[in-house]
């Protein structure tokens, strides 16, 4: 036990004396979560739009007022003819143009139908989509207001409700994703690098010749990272809750336990990588290419898995991060318990055991 304490002390010296390691450990989680939270977002704020109002009556003015008073849009300019539309878009400031047809108000009351055209700048398709959805919902709301006194039988109004994330706050999606990536990176990459470092320096050989047992070496190397990863997870959750006002619906204890499980999964992957890689550089390349990219692309963090080609969907089943993101979203956003997450938990546990068994076998072969 005393040997072990000395070993861990040494690991902490390594970590705290290396500025790069420290930055990856603590700088990156904060930078990433803030970047994803603030910069990369699906929300829209104060988007410039232009209005081509051909009727200029009470109804259109009211609609325009509703739109301009929302925090999502600001009216940048009014245009008079359709010929101006292209020129306006080309300047790039205006992202959408609303075109009200002639005699809007009259048509609405007499024929019950009036059209407004929403033209968006789809050079950025996601934003365009979001803008048109937002405008649509403002229009619908207005429609309901003017219709509320009139009884029309069997009127069907489609209502889309975004549950769990009613404001479509993208940061709620990113917090679980970033947390997954950070834990994976810190645990897998940092441990694999720190183990291969000993190989490269030749100190691993010295350790193996000493009476300290190989598994003690590995556990000693991994232990500090469990500890640091837990701190990281706490930082990320605190940032999510206090900076981005993200709710945590579920059980905190379950959240903690699942995070530790995923940390151990990633650590065992890191150990596996270190049994394959001879140098720190190889370990880093394998971690980045082999773990980071699939985690970002296939875990459902950014791109929904369901809309991927079948082959990629099958591939995504192999990514541990995918299950952890499901678990995190479940606990944080939906507040579900273990009864609904046992399948994912089981898969992660099995994967972890598999990685550990593989590492031990690899390790033995190397020693032969």
């Amino acid at each position, binding site marked *: 036990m*005393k*040997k072990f304490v000395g070993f861990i002390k040494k690991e902490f*010296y*390594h970590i705290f004396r290396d500025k790069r390691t420290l930055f990856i450990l603590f700088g990156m989680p904060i930078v990433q979560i803030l970047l994803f939270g603030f910069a990369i977002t699906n929300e829209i704020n104060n988007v410039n739009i232009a209005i081509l109002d051909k009727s200029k009556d009470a109804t259109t003015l009211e609609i325009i007022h509703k739109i301009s008073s929302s925090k999502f849009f600001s009216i940048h300019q009014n245009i008079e003819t359709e010929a101006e539309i292209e020129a306006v878009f080309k300047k790039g400031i205006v992202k959408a143009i609303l075109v009200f047809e002639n005699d809007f108000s009259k048509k609405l009351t007499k024929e019950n139908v009036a059209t407004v055209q929403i033209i968006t700048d789809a050079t950025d398709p996601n934003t365009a989509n979001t803008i048109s959805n937002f405008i649509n919902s403002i229009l619908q709301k207005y429609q309901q207001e003017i219709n509320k006194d009139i009884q029309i039988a069997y009127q069907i109004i489609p209502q889309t409700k975004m549950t769990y994330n009613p404001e479509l706050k993208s940061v709620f999606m990113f917090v679980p994703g970033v947390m997954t990536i950070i834990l994976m990176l810190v645990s897998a990459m940092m441990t694999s690098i720190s183990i291969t470092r000993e190989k490269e320096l030749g*100190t691993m050989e*010295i*350790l193996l*010749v000493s*009476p300290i047992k190989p598994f003690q070496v590995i556990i000693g190397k991994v232990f500090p990272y469990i500890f640091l990863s837990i701190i990281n997870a706490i930082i990320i959750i605190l940032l999510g809750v206090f900076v981005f006002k993200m709710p945590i619906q579920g059980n905190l204890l379950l959240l903690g336990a699942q995070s530790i499980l995923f940390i151990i999964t990633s650590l065992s992957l890191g150990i596996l990588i270190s049994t394959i890689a001879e140098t720190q550089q190889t370990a880093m390349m394998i971690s980045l290419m082999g773990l980071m990219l699939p985690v970002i692309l296939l875990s459902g963090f950014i791109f929904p898995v369901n809309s991927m080609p079948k082959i990629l969907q099958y591939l995504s089943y192999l990514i541990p991060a995918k299950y952890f993101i499901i678990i995190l979203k479940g606990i944080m956003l939906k507040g579900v318990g273990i009864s609904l997450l046992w399948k994912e938990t089981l898969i992660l546990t099995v994967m972890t055991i598999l990685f550990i068994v593989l590492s031990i076998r690899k390790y033995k072969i190397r020693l032969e």
Partner: protein
Amino acid sequence: MDKDYIIQTKDLTKKFGEFTAVNAITFEVKKGEIFGFLGANGAGKTTAMKMLIGISTPTSGEASVAGFDVFKNPNDIKKNIGYMSQKFALYDDLTVKENITFFGGIYGLSREKIKEKRCQLVDELGLQEVVNELVSSLPLGWKQKLAFSVALLHEPKIIFLDEPTGGVDPITRRQFWEMIYKTAHNGTTVFVTTHYMDEAEYCDRVSIMVDGKIEALDTPKKLKEQFRADTMNDVFLKLARG
């Protein structure tokens, strides 16, 4: 097992698949001697040494080190041997003091013992000025001496040195051999691999490995007579060229 021998092997063999790295070597190392383990790169000396220090399991044969069997008690062997590789592996980002404490710790030395050993070692090597400096700031020659002393912290019965003078200048090599002599004088057996043939002359006895076999084993003087050569280098060349 003979009491005068600290290492004894009989037909010790290591195979990797079809390839036989070490082919049935049989030899003894006497207590307290400096034993030179010579051979060209790839002759199998590193593999043989790895079997003796307990990090590689022999395919067949017998061997005992410091009175323990390499198959049955590799852990007892580990407690009784010291090892230094050609990389003089110390932790660069730890201070001299921290390195000593760490390596003393993994050999299970008590805190008092480590402190006592540290003071002694620092005095002997003249490291008083740098004891709290990072090892990375030390010159290569000092690192080598420190690594050697660290490998001796737990007072092993035998110390294995794997090409300990690779990449250092002749003066440092000379000083290092003085340390080896001193160690042997204090009763520790020294098992050293090298491919510097002039260093072979410093050993009490040397063995020369060629293609996985020990082709010659005796004192440098007798080997030179036997092969009618002036230097160990000539002996080696005659052997290696068959």
